[in-house]
């Protein structure tokens, strides 16, 4: 974890909706694992007030490649303020040979750095895009990925085979849809995999993170053992058998 400035060295438009930025970051921030990310300010003003989460999708010659929507404009040599890496790397097992990644209504970019490690270890990677995630351009994905698309979780027809096939499963969904999506997935996995090991299924929790160090307590995730842990420090991937999903369901009385 470090706080410093980075320079946008190169901008590549990957598709109509996605661009990738090569960032020259501080040496301490070049050591980043799949699942870790940066909290970034692009302006010197306080509007927007909170930092944006920037997801690394690759590393090249000391530069970190992040993915951003093309609706945001950046310029080469632009200096940005970077906090991170935030969180822990995804717990990808060395023994994993069949990796199943599921994106519900969200960009699968958070998986790409980890997936490259898995491919380098000759693991097979299957990516399931559900709902809005189907709009993610295939040309932005490694060609070694097997990609499945479905409009809804229920219309993901290959889920029986793919869940049974996987050594590890990682799922991402944006809040507030994350907990309902993970509940459905956990139910399926428990039904399909009768002997479910503790580190089989991970859900990614990405609530807004004001501080990124666990101080503000805004991103706590409730576990079955009663603990509440900050996603920005102990996450962002959590073993879904450890998470008390029902108690993490948002209530409808916010005021």
């Amino acid at each position, binding site marked *: *974890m*470090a*706080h410093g*400035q980075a320079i946008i060295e190169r901008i590549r438009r990957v598709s109509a*909706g996605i661009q990738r930025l090569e960032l020259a970051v501080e040496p301490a921030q070049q050591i980043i694992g799949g699942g870790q990310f940066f909290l970034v*300010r*692009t*302006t*010197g*003003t*306080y*509007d*927007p*007030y*909170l*930092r944006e989460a920037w997801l690394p999708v690759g590393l090249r010659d000391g530069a970190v490649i992040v993915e951003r*929507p093309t*609706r*945001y*404009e*950046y310029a080469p040599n*632009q*200096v*940005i*303020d970077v*906090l991170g890496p935030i969180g822990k790397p995804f717990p990808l097992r060395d023994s994993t040979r069949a990796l199943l990644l599921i994106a519900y*209504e*969200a*960009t699968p970019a958070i998986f790409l750095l980890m997936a490259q490690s898995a491919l380098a270890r000759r693991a097979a990677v299957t990516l399931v895009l559900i*709902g*809005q*995630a189907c*709009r*993610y351009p295939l040309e932005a994905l490694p060609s070694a990925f097997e990609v499945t698309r479905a409009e809804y979780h229920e219309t993901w027809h290959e889920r029986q085979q793919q869940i049974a096939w996987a050594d590890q499963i990682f799922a991402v969904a*944006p*809040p*507030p849809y994350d907990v309902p999506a993970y509940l459905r997935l956990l139910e399926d996995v428990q039904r399909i995999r009768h002997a479910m090991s503790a580190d089989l299924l991970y859900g990614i929790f990405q*609530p*807004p*993170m*004001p*501080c*990124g*160090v*666990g*101080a*503000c*307590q*805004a*991103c*706590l995730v*409730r576990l079955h053992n009663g603990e*509440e842990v900050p996603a920005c420090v102990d996450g962002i991937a959590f073993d879904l058998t450890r998470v008390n999903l029902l*108690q*993490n369901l*948002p*209530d*409808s009385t*916010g*005021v």
Partner: protein
Amino acid sequence: MFEITAGKSALRLNRPLMGASGAFGFAGEYSKLIDLSLLGALVTNPISLKPRRAANSTRVVPLDSGVLIHTGLPNGGIHKMHRQYAARWRTSPIPIVMHLIGSAEDLAECATFLDQQSEIASIELGINDTLTAREVRTVVATVRARTQLPLLAKLPLYQAVNVAAAAADGGADALVVAAPPRGTARDPLSGQLVGGRLYGTWLKPLAVRLVGQLAPRVGVPIIGCGGIHHPDDVRDFFEAGAKAVQLDSVVWVRPDMVAAIANALSGAELTRAAGALADEWRPYGETAERRTPLIVAPPPPFVPPPPEI
């Protein structure tokens, strides 16, 4: 050196600068990013007698130049928190002030417990914004009777004028003006209205005005808090009558600014010299250019959050 005394005990701050409750965590969460010894003291996140759980509803709503936070003030209760953090508090380079929340009875029990502990240098009471002046006096007096530690009372922003004198009468050794006010905003992710505490740059004028109103009227030191994001903001609080300040959400958005503010306060004049021109008033050696944004880039257009495909 700024000192708040209570009988034989005192809270001594090397710098009149504190980390505010709710922003810096319970014990050194920011130690990897900030040299905490630059602060005069650290106020813990709120701690209650009994455990409290995190809020179930949306906890963060981004706002223009600010943020709404609704955490539910989660903590494990004073005894568990003390067991968990006592060793770190004991070795802290700066005094630890424990921020307590709860009813008068709960606060009194917490204060009795803390009076036996050596790790805590002072207590800060979070004054609930629903209390009347009479109730505030009772709460503070009840806690005062149970502890010899210096007692700070953090006042609710919109009630501060009404309850400040009562808190001082009840035995508070200093008043913190003020706690982040409550607000309600629509969460763009869930579409719901969410209530919570407000943080942002725009709070400073409100808090500075309150400090200016209260400083001549109460007989105890005022600690300014709210919207501080720059050394100049601290200067405004001091000029209004504050004896020290607390930093809150600036540490989330610009952690480097904590060091900038602390260094600006080191050995610097804290009041404007009579007749000084605005351009001459740069006690921390900051140049005019420094006030311009460090990063020049077009602000991104407002776009609703994920899904971002």
